[in-house]
């Protein structure tokens, strides 16, 4: 090994590491990169900071001076003046506290508040097999929170200890089922529509039971004629259900009501209001509009000229007119279009119109999904020898619906927001109907902002949760790895 020679000007010892310049590390670097990277960026930051400061300095005192307990607007103002001096303004959240039940339930009978609450709680249990089937953790968190909510809410709503205990037992049993098997609560999903309608409107238990029996009958007819082709089996199923609902159900329910009467207090539709009304219309519209929308989308892409023309006409008509005019049709014109003497429930009419409205939009979203699917998928399904419905069910729709999820959910969000428009046909929606009637009272005259902010926050929470859920669903269903 030769001796290692080095020239005098070559450094032999390593210099210690120097700290980076102050401007290139920590908070200063972050500020430079994200807020002050150039003249334009600096200007934008300063402008943004000014806007933020302006908004906060205007709004903060108002929120800080909030009053939570008072009996009227006047008392609120007195408290604020006493505490913060002459001329101070502040929020009077006491109005929400005082009229909480009004905002939530409208004029629903006070002693029956537990029924819509239970219906809302069970909604998540019934939806769990569909919405949260993949992740046990999310399922247990959602259902656990709901159970806790119901157990805390029931005594507050004046339900006895025994009933609360029984309900807790039932809920815990369902929690165990949901924990062990993702699809374990599917039976609840099946009976939930009838159960929810019964809980909300009350009346004889036989009406929802027999109405649901129509679906069982349709299923029976479908399986009985299964070997004879799709048209015959679907046709006989529809015919059996319609015959049951229109001809057999009335007499049968009368007989049952006479000999086996069981009914809970009926609640008329005009008692509905607030978020109970918004959620009733919203959830019913969401559940009903998705299947109708998918069928409409398939009809619009059909090879059959007439079917396609009818679907196009329907979709374009619905999408071309404002929802308000359809609600007017529901409230004013349906009396003309239906046989004389028919007078069915205004909430049901509104639900039908909202459903048709959302279905037309969903049809367009799903049509986009169907069009985005590569042609090869259709051809592959054909080459496997699948018939039309099998090809749609097994190959086309699962992929097309997956692509359409963001659009479908934003349609749902739009529809939930549009439930506030029912105020214009005389229903008490939480946004305008309830706030107007609260403000019409002597004590709360002049409270403008608080009800709007409160209702807006609740809508924001629901819609934001829905949009986040759609993002989660998109990630969960993503099968390709780009």
């Amino acid at each position, binding site marked *: 090994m030769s001796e290692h020679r080095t020239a005098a000007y070559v450094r032999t010892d390593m210099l210690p590491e120097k700290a980076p310049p102050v401007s290139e590390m920590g908070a200063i670097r972050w500020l430079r990169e994200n*807020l002050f990277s150039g003249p334009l960026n600096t200007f934008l930051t300063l402008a943004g900071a000014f806007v933020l400061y302006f908004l906060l300095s205007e709004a903060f005192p108002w929120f800080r001076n909030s009053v939570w307990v008072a009996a009227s607007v006047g008392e609120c103002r007195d408290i604020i003046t006493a505490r913060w001096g002459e001329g101070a303004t502040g929020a009077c959240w006491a109005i929400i506290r005082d009229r909480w039940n009004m905002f939530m339930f409208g004029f629903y009978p006070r002693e029956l508040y537990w029924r819509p609450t239970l219906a809302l709680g069970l909604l998540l249990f019934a939806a769990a097999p569909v919405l949260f089937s993949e992740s046990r953790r999310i399922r247990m968190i959602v259902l656990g929170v709901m159970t806790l909510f119901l157990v805390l809410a029931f005594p507050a709503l004046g339900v006895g200890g025994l009933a609360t205990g029984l309900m807790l037992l039932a809920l815990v049993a369902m929690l165990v089922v949901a924990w062990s098997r993702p699809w374990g609560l599917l039976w609840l999903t099946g009976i939930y529509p009838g159960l929810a309608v019964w809980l909300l409107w009350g009346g004889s238990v036989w009406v929802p039971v027999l109405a649901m029996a129509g679906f069982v009958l349709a299923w029976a007819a479908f399986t009985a004629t299964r070997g004879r082709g799709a048209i015959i089996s679907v046709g006989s199923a529809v015919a059996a259900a319609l015959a049951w609902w229109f001809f057999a159900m009335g007499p049968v329910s009368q007989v049952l009501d006479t000999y086996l009467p069981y009914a809970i207090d009926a609640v008329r539709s005009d008692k509905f209001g607030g978020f109970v009304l918004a959620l009733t219309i919203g959830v019913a519209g969401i559940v009903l509009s998705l299947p109708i929308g998918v069928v409409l989308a398939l009809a619009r892409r059909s090879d059959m000229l007439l079917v396609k023309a009818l679907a196009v006409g329907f979709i374009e008509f619905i999408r071309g007119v404002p929802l308000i*005019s359809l609600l*007017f049709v529901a409230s004013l*014109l349906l009396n003309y279009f239906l*046989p*004389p003497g028919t007078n069915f429930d205004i909430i049901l009419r509104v639900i039908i119109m909202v459903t048709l409205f959302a279905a037309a939009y969903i049809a367009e979203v799903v049509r986009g999904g169907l069009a985005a699917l590569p042609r090869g998928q259709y051809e592959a399904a054909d080459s496997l020898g699948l018939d039309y419905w099998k090809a749609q069910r097994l190959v086309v729709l699962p992929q097309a619906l997956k692509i359409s999820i963001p659009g479908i959910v934003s349609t749902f969000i739009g529809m939930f927001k549009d439930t506030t428009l029912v105020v*214009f046909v005389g229903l008490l929606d939480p946004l305008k109907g309830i706030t107007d009637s609260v403000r019409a009272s002597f004590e709360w005259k002049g409270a*403008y902002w608080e009800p709007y902010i409160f209702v807006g926050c609740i809508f*924001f929470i629901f819609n934001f949760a829905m949009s986040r859920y759609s993002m989660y669903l998109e990630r969960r269903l993503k099968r390709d790895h780009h």
Partner: protein
Amino acid sequence: MAIASDAPKQSFRLSQLLYDTRYRSTTIQVVVLMLFMAVAAWLVDNTITNLAARGKDFNFGFLGIRAGYDIGQRLIAYDSDSTHARAMLVGLLNTLLVAFLGCIVATVVGVFVGVLRLSKNWLVSRLMTVYVEIFRNVPVLLWILIIYAVFTEAAPLPNAFREGGAASMILFDTVAVTNRYTAVPDPLFYRSLGNIDIGIFLISSDLLAIIAAVVAGWYANRLVLRRATAVQNATGLRPVTWWKTLALLILPGVLTLWALGFHLGYPSLRGFNFTGGINVSNSFMALWLALSLYTGAFIAEIVRAGVLAVSHGQTEAAYALGLRPGRTMNLVILPQALRVIIPPLISQFLNLTKNSSLAIATGYLDLRGTLGGITLNQTGRELETVLLMMLIYLVLSLLISGAMNIYNASVKLKER
């Protein structure tokens, strides 16, 4: 050798209508048609029976009779002696006005916010995200009501604008926001050309002259640009055109305004009210602002998605070709982003137009307020008024989407 033999001839059986794919679709369509016609006939029959039972008939004669109500904001001559048809027209023009102005402001807001949301500036992009999420997730009715309440509850009385009063006018003393109306300057002409009577209503010749001048300038600019492109194709050098473009786009309009003697009539407080300008009702202002801000949040998302849809490789390719950032934006990114942006933008414009029927919340008399509101209540003809109103909205929607589709066809990918 095998001899191909014809399939044995079968006589036609009824079950073939269902099981034979040659006939099945016809069968289904015939059944659907019969069902559809049966339902339609049932509805029409019910309607006739119900009308007869109420002693009503189905005719639009009510459109010709005296309306008897006043409309605060009208773009054409109207008074309470005018007919219901004219009230409907006034309402329709009000709908069109708020929809048109709303679409413009919503597009400006949307492009602005959408671009800023993509900015690298942490603070600004967060602020814009908050704006978009708040406006998209809350019903538009709430925004209309809140903005209306801001105008009617928080704005000062006209009285407060007196010398030494608590309120002051904004924008260099030209605009006064009061709790009853917003007073804005009135465009006036010293040498007005008068109005043209086209039978139904009057059209301002001044407006037509200005529009004609601007359109002519725009068209001339297109010719200049085309000539420049031709020169560039022939010689490889593009003549400098920016000053010609600037002159052609600005000068015709400005010169016409000058020739007509354009000036503004500023509002000023006389007694208890502002005069000299135009007093725009707060119901209109609230509806306009709320619809613009609400739809603007949706358009911002569309713009953002459109810009993000253009892959980064496109920008890099343009830089590799030596294009400057401005030309990269104009020639490479924007044409591709527009292709993604235009179709959803059309449906946002349609949504805004349809949402303008929420004027019902502020009392602004649009088509729904006149035809579907006061006229309906006065004449009691629900069937005719609601159907006519829906028909007009439908035609409006089809016209807007038709016009925008033509534009879309001009920007979309030309496939060969």
